[in-house]
């Protein structure tokens, strides 16, 4: 009795706590409220565990008595009797009985038993049917759950919270200066080799894309112009937009690496494209 009372009290408290949470509370109190909620939940878990332990202890202790009860024909064949069977080690409720009575027919020597459907199978079938009806009803009849498009919208909304509202305006030019440390340049080289080399050549000598080592530029050779070209790409000319694939820092690293290649005159260089624009060499390190 006391256990039930305690359980009730705890549940009530948890409910009250949840109600409080729902009410608009000052932001400072939020963390202490969560703490209280966790404390209550932990208490609840503890109480439930103790309850289960005590019940199983009683069942084990009373095993001979329960067995006697179970053996009575009036109990054995009732529903509650079957549940009792679970406690005394008779799994009739789950596995069913194998009476192994033949059906009285046979085909080419194959006979068939008249056994019941295994109850666990039957109930899981019923369970999946209930799930299916609930699932379809929830999503398609009541339209209570999100459809694919709604899910996508939610995901994108969440993403905007994660990603800073960095000015994604391609018309605005950044004001970075080229990076010059060996660490940044070697990181830039790594990015270049995996992402840029297929089109611009392993030494930036130009293949499908233009030569990046000469003084001629199609979309501007100043570091912030290169940054912009990498970030947003050039639609229709094959330059891929790398935003979303490379971070801002990575783009700056690879742009700096490209600048460091100015005048490197690699073998097989592609002829110049675009306008001549001399880039200030990198500041000495």
């Amino acid at each position, binding site marked *: 009795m006391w256990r039930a009372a305690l359980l009730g009290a705890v549940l009530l408290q948890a409910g009250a706590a949840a109600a409080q949470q729902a009410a608009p509370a000052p932001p400072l109190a939020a963390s202490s409220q969560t703490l209280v909620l966790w404390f209550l939940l932990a208490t609840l878990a503890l109480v439930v565990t103790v309850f289960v332990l005590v019940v199983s202890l009683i069942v084990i202790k009373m095993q001979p008595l329960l067995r006697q009860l179970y053996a009575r024909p009036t109990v054995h064949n009732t529903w509650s009797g079957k549940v009792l069977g679970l406690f005394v080690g008779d799994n009739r409720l789950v596995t069913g009985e*194998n009476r*192994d*009575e*033949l*059906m009285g027919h*046979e*085909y*080419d*020597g*194959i*006979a*068939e*038993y*008249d*056994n*019941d*459907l*295994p109850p666990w*199978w039957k109930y*899981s*079938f019923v369970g*999946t*049917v209930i*799930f*299916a009806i609930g*699932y*379809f009803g929830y*999503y*398609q009849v009541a339209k209570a759950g999100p*459809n*694919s*498009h709604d*899910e*996508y919208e939610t*995901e*994108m909304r969440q*993403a905007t919270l*994660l*990603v800073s509202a960095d000015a994604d305006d*391609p*018309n605005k030019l950044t004001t970075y200066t080229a990076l010059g440390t060996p660490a940044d340049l070697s990181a830039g080289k790594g990015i270049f080799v*995996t*992402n840029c*080399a*297929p*089109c611009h050549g392993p030494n930036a000598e130009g*293949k*499908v894309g233009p030569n990046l080592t000469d003084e001629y530029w199609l979309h501007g050779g100043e570091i912030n112009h290169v940054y912009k070209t990498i970030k*947003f*790409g*050039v*639609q*229709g000319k*094959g330059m*891929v937009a790398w935003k*979303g*694939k*490379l*971070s*801002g820092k990575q783009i700056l690293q690879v742009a700096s690496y490209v600048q460091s290649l100015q005048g490197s005159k690699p073998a097989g260089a592609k002829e110049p494209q675009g306008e001549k624009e001399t880039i200030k060499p990198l500041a000495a390190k």
Partner: protein
Amino acid sequence: MQAEYIPPGTAASSPLTQKGLAPAVDTFYYDNKIVRDFGIATVFWGIAGMMVGLLAAFQLAQPEANLHTSFTTFGRIRPLHTNAVIFAFVGNGIFMGVYYSLQRLCKAAMYSKVLSRVHFWGWQLIILSALISLPLGFTTSKEYAELEWPIDIAITLVWVVFGWNMFGTIARRRERHLYVGIWFYIATLITVAVLHLVNSAEVPVSWMKSYSAYAGVQDALVQWWYGHNAVAFFLTTPYLGLMYYFLPKAAGRPVYSYRLSIIHFWSLIFIYIWAGPHHLLYTALPDWAQSLGVAFSVMLLAPSWGGMINGLLTLRGAWDKVRTEPVLKFMVVAVTAYGMATFEGPMLSLKNVNAIAHFTDWIVAHVHVGALGWNGFLTFAILYWLWPRLYRTELYSKKLANTHFWLGTVGILVYALPLYWAGFTQGLMWKQFNAEGMLQYPNFLETVLQIVPMYYLRGIGGTLYLSGVFLMVFNLIKTARAGTLLAAEKAQAPALVPAELVEAHQGGHWHRWIERRPFQLALWATVAIAIGGIVEMIPTFLVKSNVPTIASVKPYTPLELQGRDLYIREGCSNCHTQMVRPFRSETERYGEYSKAGEFVYDRPFLWGSKRTGPDLHRVGGKYPHSWHYNHMLDPTTMSPGSIMPPYPWLFENKLDNSTLPAKIRVLQRLGTPYPRGYDQQALADARRQADGIAQDLKKEDIEVMSDKEIVALIAYLQRLGTDIKVKPEQVATAAQ
């Protein structure tokens, strides 16, 4: 635990003789030769199909394994592998088992020896035509239905022959009631016929080219209704029928539960047919159809497991035999693999699991547990059981059969586990964002190279499995040599007493009523399998809101259409999807997600089912022509380390425009709004567009004749997904 089991037949008298009726005893002969012939065909095509599978498997690890010919490149031999294994190996396995068991369960010889022969040779010729036409690039691109329209007609005719022979035999049976195995055979016969006829609806353009009667979303729905139920009614129901005959026979035990077989038979065939849309979760298929697919897939779990538990529980009291009898060992693993695959299926149908697993090797692993475990092992069990009986001798070597069993079992594990690992890894890598809110692995290739070692391992697993099959061939040949084929097996049974004279048929289990009425059984099975398809398809076809129109979506130009048919010929859709799903990870990687209205001119649809390479739906305009030119010539120049094979023949072959006007006319008939008389103008338009592309390429120092196939393919790839493309970058360039 259970009552002592006395095998039937040992009882003194049957109910009939007790009643004092004295039926005449007929003598007749079972045709064993046809069973043997189908058995040989099973093994022969099984080895062929698995060898092609191995070749395809190693190509994914080592693209050079394409042997540098168009005929043996992955896109063409992957359909060859699937068709060979499903329709040649398993197909002949079905016929072997059905021809053996049906005669004995009906106590009658096959209806017609001529029909049996026609069926046998007709089926082998169909397989041969697949073996020739698929490597040549004749394909509809619809999975497991790739064969072109003349072969589709041949399949229909041979299937009718099979049905005629089967129902003829059932009509002449000397056993009043039909055994559960036969219910499954009947359901198979009817459903495969319906699936094949509906999905193969296509309009011929020429001898070996046709366009699907359905377009886009509708084509996808029909295709996966077919594809899913090819698994259900070609790989599952006939094999359950075979299990119900051969497993109790081999174990010498009665079937566990007659009632379970009734419930699971009807629920299985009714529910299976609805589950097709689970192949199209998160695609442009309407949401209600996707939800139906999920709901019915979950409900499919118990009916599938009904078959498994009825099989496994039948072995109660025979587990000691399992330890020594290779036939039973194979059966136990087969039924267990069936249980695992049918548990995994509903789980993969849950949308959140599917979001990770779909398009990855996880699915490949899943189907191979079914194919290698369930179909393969049950086939081997039946062969080991049949051969000594057909040849009236003992199996040559149990030891070899046991070795085969272990090689096969280890082979399945070494095949499947690495692919599960690979699929899970890649699926998560595609979705992984870094702290800055960007894709962790923006380069698709990186996620491929990560799992290449797994591709090697799966190839080794397949090799182990196949080597076991070779042991079986040796064992069966030795067994056959030791005995002689009993081509016609003598049997006796009393003729069937007219039903009205037999009082015993009154009462009994209610289901007995339909078991003595093959026509009604077939009719109700047809009703059961028709409902799901009708409910899903008719609204998708008739209700306009299911495929919202997009005004900017226009038909393909003639050159793009030609390029699209090359894409189909080369089997690009075996590795590349055209379906960007509504996930942030996909719209970041590929662009705007795919909409139903974009596919209205796609005959057939080319959404694909596996991403060995990246999705291509938004590839149009992403790269310059020269990128595609170089990439198709040697993919590794543009993507170092790529496992895509090169396609040099596209640069040598001249584009065949001879059927172009016919193609335009067929598409017009199907509803594509080309202007009246456009078929006469199409060729000139195609040439003009090709010249334009060749000139663009020239600007980038690439000299190419505008009449080569590659130009058409580039035209198609550059068109893909551009009709609705939002182009903020263009605005930006303009503002500059």
